[in-house]
């Protein structure tokens, strides 16, 4: 018994992730340092600083999609639902607090968009949001809970793949329409604006810390036993089920983790940018997150970060040129190109290419391939038939 225990322990340690190479650690530290010191050489109020914090939030969002899509194979086209709910909770709380100190034109101490829509006072169910910590708690807890309910309903009944994608898409569309319709409580088309946001070095460091923490959590998760099971589910869920794993529970778990990360990204986004609109909860934003992940490389952890920064950065560069009106067009081309030609994304393709290079010279690879081919042929041939490469005289 003791022997068996130590045996599995040994096997587990052997399966543990490879040691992180020193250059990766250094590179990561360099990137973090570059982002962290950005306020010093760019100025505290520059537009680029705002953009940087925004991109970090988008990168977390893409990472959350990567966890469910890249590692588990659940394509959700409605992940912005969780991002949006998180963002709206924080934005509402900040707006309410802002209104307490800055009365509206008629001297009322509640958000101006509620006044425009004919409310006389802050609705009772919103009063708890005056406490910002509580709002932040709601912003991450409620989406996670919603994701749990959604997961229990769908994954427990083996609803996945295209069905899941379509249902989540509809979810996102409905939330968007809900926000527009109930403008007295959500700001409607205009969204929630004009509240004191937290642009500046300290909050950038906070976002950066959260980003790094989520990255490490994601790494620990995907390199653990759970991560191995998740990948098994992605590659062949029926086989994973037959091997005794409760596929539905694993799916629900990772879906909740992902929703938690999305919601946190949304909460940070709202506090950083100072404007939240229905677009941040809509289907277009959801799909955009998926495409960032696809461009960067799904099933890699760097991919979502790279994808979010590259695509969003490109959009920023193009939107100031004459191409601005056709940006959407390039986005469409990008979707198709990534799916057709680089389905593994930039990081995945590059990584595969490097791995192939490292395996040896062309001669060695060819020899290896020959051996493999010979083995394969042997399996096909009937006993007694001449072997491949054998002289038959």
């Amino acid at each position, binding site marked *: 018994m003791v022997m068996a225990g130590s045996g599995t322990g040994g096997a587990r340690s052997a399966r543990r992730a490879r040691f992180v190479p020193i250059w990766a650690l250094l590179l990561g530290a360099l990137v973090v340092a570059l982002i962290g010191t950005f306020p010093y050489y760019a100025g505290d109020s520059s537009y680029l600083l705002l953009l940087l914090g925004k991109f970090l939030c988008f990168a977390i969002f893409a990472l959350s999609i990567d966890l469910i899509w890249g590692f588990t194979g659940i394509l959700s086209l409605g992940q912005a639902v969780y991002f949006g709910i998180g963002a709206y909770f924080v934005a509402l709380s900040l707006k309410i607090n802002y209104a307490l100190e800055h009365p509206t034109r008629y001297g009322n101490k509640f958000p101006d968009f509620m006044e425009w829509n004919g409310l006389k006072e802050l609705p009772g169910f919103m009063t708890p949001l005056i406490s910002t910590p509580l709002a932040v708690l709601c912003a991450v807890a409620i989406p996670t809970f919603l994701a749990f309910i959604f997961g229990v309903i*769908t994954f427990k009944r083996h609803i996945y793949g295209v069905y899941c994608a379509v249902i989540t898409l509809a979810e996102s*569309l409905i939330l968007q329409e809900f926000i527009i319709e109930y403008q007295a409580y959500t700001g409607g088309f205009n969204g929630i604006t004009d509240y004191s946001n937290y642009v500046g070095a300290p909050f950038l460091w906070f976002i950066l810390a959260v980003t790094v923490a989520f990255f490490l959590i994601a790494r620990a998760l995907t390199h653990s036993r759970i991560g191995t099971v998740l990948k098994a589910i992605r590659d062949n869920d029926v086989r994973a089920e037959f091997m005794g794993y409760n596929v539905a529970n694993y799916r629900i778990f990772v879906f909740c983790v992902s929703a938690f990360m999305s919601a946190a990204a949304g909460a940070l986004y709202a506090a950083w940018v100072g404007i939240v609109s229905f677009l941040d909860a809509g289907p277009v934003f959801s799909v955009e997150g998926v495409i960032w992940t*696809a461009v960067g490389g799904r099933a890699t952890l760097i991919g979502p970060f790279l994808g979010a920064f590259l695509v969003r950065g490109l959009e920023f560069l193009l939107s100031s040129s004459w191409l601005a009106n*056709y940006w959407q*067009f390039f986005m469409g081309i990008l*979707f198709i190109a990534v799916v057709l030609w680089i389905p593994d994304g930039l990081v995945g393709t590059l990584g595969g290419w490097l791995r192939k290079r490292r395996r040896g010279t062309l001669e060695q690879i060819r020899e290896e391939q020959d051996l493999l081919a010979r083995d394969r042929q042997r399996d096909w041939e009937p006993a007694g038939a001449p072997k491949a490469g054998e002289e038959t005289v």
Partner: protein
Amino acid sequence: MTQALISQFLIGFSVAAILVIGAIGLAVIFGVAGVINMAHGQFIMVGAYTAAVVGQLGGNTFLAIPVAFVVVALLGLVVERGIIQWIYDRPLETLLATWGVGIILEVLMKVIFGPELYYVGAPRILDGGVRFIGRLPYPYYRLFLIGLAAVMVLATLYLIFRTDFGLKVRAVRRNRAMAGCLGIDTARIDMLIFMYGSGLAGIAGAVLAPIKSVSTTMGFSYAVGSYMVIVLGGVGNLLGVPTGGFLIGEGETLLAYKFNSVIGQLLVFVAIVIAIRVFPRGIFGYHERR
């Protein structure tokens, strides 16, 4: 009260007809090829613009229907040959690629036709309405939509169950590898069925143009409605589309009458999610062998 309810019920019937018209093309493609066309809404939009052009040239909806069918079927041919044929084995990525197609179509149509809205009149014969109950007349055009939905479903049923082509389609759907071994060109079947489904989307656009202003973004909400119809009705049997369309159309209309349209949509969505817990592959779904 009952009168209002009955008239709402009748309106819901026409909403259901619109959903069926939009969803039938999608259901055919999804049922056979197993891919969902995320550009379906934009295909509907192209059909509507085709109807607008036909209208400007002096034609009416009856002329626009075949023209839109051909135009959008050709568009489907281009998309299928250019993109989808390479990724049939990756259905989730088909979603992304066709989403890209949708974006490109929206930009292209905006470049060609400009940002302004187009209005297409209903044919003269279908002006006015018949008074079933209460004060408000029931427009002839809505009756026409209900009839058209029935015709489209019946025509598709005929095509699938009474023609040679349909026999091959059913064979491919049941067992693709075996059908291929028996000499059926499965890639060609996929292509033709995609063209047919796209053409049906074109018809949907042509007949929806008179009841909604034609713009580049008109298609998306119809497309989502169509996806919901498929999810609820299932694709195992073509009767799933009318069933799903009827349930969703009536549900949304009656709930919108009781509360408002957003609450109606929300409740219907919740009902759909609960319903697929009972029928994971839709009401008429079959449990696919994997």
